[in-house]
């Protein structure tokens, strides 16, 4: 028996506009409405709407077909603002009863690394919003970019979650297969689902790669790989960005046809089925304890945080952001609090990544700016303005010297 567990990540950040030193203290409209609306419209047309349609048809055709989504709060808001029909189509999908909604930090942030309090608030906000919109209270947690360690599991278990998702990193798995359910050490009942990155990336990254020896990837071939797990695995976790369909892999690559035909192919093997994460942990017993003492993620070859926090600009920017947390949240200024939270979105730090000159074009494709340096300049200028707003609200507020932040922050990280 092999169960396929599909989880799709849906996320869009609020990108920052060109914000220069001439704007600091004068304008506090940080986000680029035109760009954000434009991207949302484009991705809605290329990915969200057509893929939702394909999935809805598949559910009608195969009543046992199951999938899971995590949709960030910033994506949900931008659906409402710029593409309300996308939100409606997601609601329609969830209403079939075949879709499980997961929870993440509302602002798709790295808060777990910097502020557990803010992390808790963002997770609760997201959980609440999912309940309001889709009528489901999520019980499975996935952290931004699958950032994970034992500590994440222990923390979210206390928050009441039943399972957490993470990357099946080779160096962690060792001889273990990602195709079983695991338990983190020193926890009572929370389960761990590990991504089968080889099979996931065959779809998400390699599908259209003509240099790949398996190209073209047919459903027959993929179905065969899935079925061959029978006997040495129970669940195959296919976790990927939802934008894989139609946006990362364009329609002309045949990705939609592949998706349309895949369930039928999987069902050809009578022992196979599709399950949501909650169904997986009910059906399968824990195979082993999986000890992950240090932070991993699903990004790049390194599977770590280096795409977000790997260089000095990124570290300086995020430390400065969280240094302002208490003052911002105590300010009572809702607009300020919201702006600050929108700045916690991980993408802003990703845009400052300089690895992409060597690391392939994945980063470049997602970069909202011409260069990581421009990304840093915009962001740090915005933070400077946030500081001025705090100063306006409170005469006693000390404007910390930006260049000495790193020194003051010993102990924060």
């Amino acid at each position, binding site marked *: 028996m092999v169960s396929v567990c599909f989880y799709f990540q849906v996320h869009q950040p609020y990108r920052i506009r060109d914000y220069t030193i001439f704007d600091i203290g004068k304008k506090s409209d940080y986000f680029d409405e035109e760009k954000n609306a434009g991207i949302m419209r484009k991705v809605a047309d290329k990915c969200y709407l057509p893929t939702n349609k394909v999935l809805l048809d598949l559910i009608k055709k195969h009543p046992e077909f199951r999938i899971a989504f995590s949709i960030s709060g910033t994506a949900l808001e931008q659906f409402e603002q710029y593409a309300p029909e996308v939100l409606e189509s997601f609601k329609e999908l969830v209403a079939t009863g075949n879709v499980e909604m997961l929870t993440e930090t509302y602002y798709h942030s790295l808060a777990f690394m910097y502020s557990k309090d803010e992390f808790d608030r963002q997770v609760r906000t997201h959980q609440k919003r999912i309940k309001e919109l889709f009528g489901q209270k999520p019980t499975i947690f996935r952290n931004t970019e699958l950032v994970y360690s034992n500590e994440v599991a222990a923390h979210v278990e206390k928050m009441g979650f039943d399972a957490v998702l993470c990357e099946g990193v080779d160096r962690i798995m060792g001889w273990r297969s990602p195709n079983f359910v695991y338990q983190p050490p020193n926890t009572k009942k929370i389960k761990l689902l590990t991504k089968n990155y080889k099979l996931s990336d065959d779809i998400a990254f390699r599908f259209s790669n003509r240099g790949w020896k398996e190209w073209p990837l047919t459903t027959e071939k993929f179905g065969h790989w899935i079925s061959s797990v029978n006997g040495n695995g129970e669940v195959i976790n296919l976790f990927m960005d939802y934008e894989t369909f139609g946006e990362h892999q364009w329609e002309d690559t045949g990705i939609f046809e592949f998706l349309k035909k895949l369930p039928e192919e999987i069902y050809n093997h009578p022992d196979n089925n599709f399950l949501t994460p909650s169904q997986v942990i009910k059906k399968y017993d824990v195979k082993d304890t999986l000890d992950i003492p240090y932070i991993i993620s699903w990004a790049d070859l390194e599977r770590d945080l280096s795409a977000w926090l790997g260089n000095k600009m990124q570290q300086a920017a995020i430390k400065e952001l969280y240094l302002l947390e208490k003052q911002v949240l105590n300010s009572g200024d809702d607009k300020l609090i919201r702006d600050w939270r929108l700045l916690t979105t991980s993408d802003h730090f990703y845009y400052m990544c300089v690895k992409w*000159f060597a690391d392939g074009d994945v980063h470049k494709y997602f970069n909202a700016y011409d260069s990581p340096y421009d990304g840093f300049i915009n962001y*740090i200028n915005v933070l400077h303005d946030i500081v001025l707003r705090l100063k306006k609200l409170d005469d006693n507020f000390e404007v910390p010297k930006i260049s000495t932040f790193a020194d003051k922050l010993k102990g924060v990280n």
Partner: protein
Amino acid sequence: MFGWEFPPIKSGGLGTACRDLAKGLCAIDVDITFVMPADTEGISSPYAKLMGTAKLTGKLKIKGVNTVLTPYQTAHGYDEMIHNFDILGTKGEKDIYGKNIYAEVERYTKAALLIAAQEPHDVIHVHDWMTYQAGINARNVSGKPLVAHIHATEFDRTGGNPNQFISHREFEGLQAADVIIANSEYTKQNVIKAYGLDPGKIQVVHWGIEQESPHYGIGQESPFNEEHGTVLFLGRVTIQKGPDWFVETAKKVVDHHPKTKFIMAGNGDMLPRMIDRVTELGLHNHFVFTGFLKGADVHKAFQMADLYVMPSTSEPFGLVALESLKNNTPILISKQSGVSEVVNNALKTDFWNVDDMANKIVSVLRHKELHQELQSNSYQEAFDHCIYKPAQKTKDIYNQVLINSGRNLIGWGG
């Protein structure tokens, strides 16, 4: 190879570019006879040092034709030079020297007929408009293929107001050439735009930089307090290099980062106007004008600076930006440059966008993390731009043009 200058006889980047190309080609067994319009007696010694390194296996000869014309001077500068030339009675047979720009080029061009007949060669390679007619003459004598290298178009040099004589010469040479080598995609597009030539015969060869120099890494400290921040302009103070945009930007930088110091290194026809403008803007305490720098002083200037700014209005390549990186100084370069096509770890701007330039300069001075990341990443990146890559590409082009004309290849026993 027909060129105009060769270190130590040089006034701009063209000489350095020719030397580096020659050095790179020597390393891959291409023998070069370099023809230049100067008295070359006594200038072989610096080059002999170059020949001394193990990799230099080719022979490089320098032939001279006396002249007073330098390729990048303004009309005013030329008159002055002619004047001095006559008064000083410089050595040589005065009566054969031309008295104007046309005559200088004509003499050089005529000499090419003799040289082409005497010197064995497989390919004729000419550098910029001054040498193009010489190359055509040489081809008429030897029948060998002509490669025209374009380092800068007349439109780049003059901010879009070309001297008709020069642009005509440029056009004739480029049109006559079997292959054109442009030192950037930017230059290639300019050539297509200005002269409507077939894009198919224009090859792009980006320049590289000498990776070793005794001057790199001298570690010259800035004379200014570290908290001031030092921003450098280095190049000819002419319209092409955008010194005026630099000064206007400086005003905005000082408004936001009041202690910033600016160094303007270089000479040129716009220098007096720049000094006036700096005074007018009340920036005299913020500016240092060094005049023309050479040798180690160039590198010291880079090392003193936190950021090198190249606001060129039109920069066919911009080797100086790579020199800055070799001295561990990050760069802010105009997008209207060839070098911006190949360096990723740099701040880039449109030369006219004073606000954007000021924003970027102030950010580098304010945030040491930005400065450090730019510095270390761009320093690493400079290693990718050595002089051997363009040389190899050039040799490939020679071979291609020889194949196309049914001849034997260079370095293949032909």
